[in-house]
């Protein structure tokens, strides 16, 4: 590893750590317990963890198959499909929210159908939050996993096939385990993206305590009135994140070959 890399690496680290240090410096630790246990905070935290977890699960269940199809099929239109899948990445989240409203909202073509046939309205529900988060987060998972699939190549999958493994077995016993590190990064990225989702959520799902007001919305709302409480909530999230990353991630992310 070239020495010269250390300087930018340290700078990069500083860019991340200094602001977080700033946050810690500003934290009113005395008020922390009160702030964290306020009704609004607890509701938002619970809702955020729940919806982000749900949408991450959805991202994995839907995104991994999509990534495999993109990486392994040879249809000519795959390239176009890949471009389409990445669109939510570049769409400003608020616009993503409108896109969702226009399809699943009361006046959207799907939403209208759902309303008329099943009496279901999606906007302003927790389901809307999950859908919005999945919409913005899934491309992150697809990109990570597809990249890894392409990098790993098909050699091991071919070997497995010659040993008699059918596609489903190859997928579960070879593709997935070898994909684990990338899948782990993908999960971390999409969970993070879902957890931080703001624009699409507020546009498509609104902001009601306990139903659709996730932590970023709560923080945004509180930020006007009571920054301390927003900061306190964030600290809690940081602690959860560090625990998740340090405890759960290393085994999988450090890879099979380590």
């Amino acid at each position, binding site marked *: 590893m070239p020495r010269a890399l250390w300087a930018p690496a340290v700078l990069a680290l500083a860019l991340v750590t200094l602001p977080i240090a700033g946050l810690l410096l500003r934290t009113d630790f005395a008020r922390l317990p009160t702030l964290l246990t306020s009704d609004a905070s607890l509701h938002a935290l619970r809702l955020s963890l729940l919806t982000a977890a749900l949408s991450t699960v959805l991202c994995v269940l839907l995104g991994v198959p999509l990534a495999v199809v993109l990486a392994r099929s040879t249809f000519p239109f795959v390239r176009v499909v890949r471009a389409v899948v990445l669109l939510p990445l570049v769409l400003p989240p608020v616009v993503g929210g409108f896109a969702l409203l226009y399809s699943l909202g009361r006046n959207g073509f799907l939403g209208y159908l759902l309303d008329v046939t099943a009496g279901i309205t999606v906007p302003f529900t927790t389901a809307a939050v999950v859908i919005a988060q999945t919409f913005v987060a899934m491309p992150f998972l697809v990109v990570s996993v597809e990249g890894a699939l392409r990098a790993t190549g098909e050699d*091991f999958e071919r*070997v*497995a096939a*010659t040993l*008699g493994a059918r*596609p489903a077995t190859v997928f579960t*016993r070879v593709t997935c385990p070898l994909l684990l590190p990338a899948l782990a990064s993908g999960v971390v990225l999409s969970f993070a993206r879902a957890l931080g989702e703001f624009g699409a959520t507020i546009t498509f799902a609104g902001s009601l305590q306990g139903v659709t007001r996730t932590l970023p919305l709560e923080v945004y709302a509180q930020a006007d009135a009571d920054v301390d409480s927003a900061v306190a909530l964030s600290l809690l999230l940081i602690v959860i994140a560090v625990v998740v990353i340090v405890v759960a991630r290393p085994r999988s992310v450090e890879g*099979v*070959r380590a």
Partner: protein
Amino acid sequence: MSGLRAELRLRRDGFALDVALDVPDGEVLAVLGPNGSGKSTLLDCLAGLLRPADASIYIAGRSVAGLPPPERRVGVLRQDPLLFPHLSVLDNVAFGPRSRGSDRATAREVARRWLTEIGVAEFADRRPSRLSGGQAQRVALARALATDPTLLLLDEPLAALDVDAAPAMRAALRTVLRQRRAGRVAVVVTHDPLDAISLADHVLVLAAGRVVEQGPTREVLASPRTGFTARIAGLNLVVGEATADGLRVDGHALTGVLAEDAVPGDPAVAVFPPRAVSVFLSDDEPHGSPRNTAPATIAALEPHGAVVRLRTRDDRPGWTSGIAADLTPAAVADLALDVGSQVLLSVKAATVDVHPALRRSPAP
């Protein structure tokens, strides 16, 4: 119809493969050829890893050209071991049986048996990344064998093995290939003529994607028609029946060194290089260590690199029929040898290897 029958045509950049082959039920085909002649490509086609548009492949009478690998019931050892990095050695070998429907315990049991057979049982719990080159090669061989396939495809199975391991693996492979029940076929790619002789009934020689020689092992290796085959083979092969101290041919004895798994009374092949055959004039029988001395008539004499290769007529009972002997030009001149000369051939018993033959009649 059973066995393996295939016709393949494939283009790949500048390279074109065009092969037709036919391996009868229960037999073994050795594929020889220079680097880049298409041996691995041929195996990939048979395995279903490459699917040329222009191909017909029948395994045990079933057309498989359109089928994906798992539905072909093949077992493959590729040139690169490609052990699954995320599985232990044991689970790598158990992968095939598991995929073919065995439960975990049974599959592991099978795997353990094969690891023991191949001599790498001690590494069962290791990750593949912690194996040496030869160890990985052996585990990959065990993995291919453990699938118990209808068509077994082995690409250089004994490469990277040490001098102790190679013969042991060869004997193990021979056991496996001989035990194979009807309806089974194996194709083995190798650079070593000994593998062809000791493992295969048939030989196919590839050059630049085309078949240049094909036929029963004994015939192809004993009378090679191309320079390449001659260089890798050009061995004398004598078919007969194993005895305690060598081989019996048409009632005549040929003393030699028996391979470990050769059983007296069973069909066997004696192998010795032309350069090991000494030639004496008929009236001058030597009295020395060479156990095997018998008369023959010279059929041909031709230059062969730095030496002269002499061939005997195929006109007598015993081992001296159709034998090649390499002599220095000086020796040929000194003994005044010519076509039709009556000579005594002598070959030291220690240079004669007696291998079990794969079946009673190795010819088609």
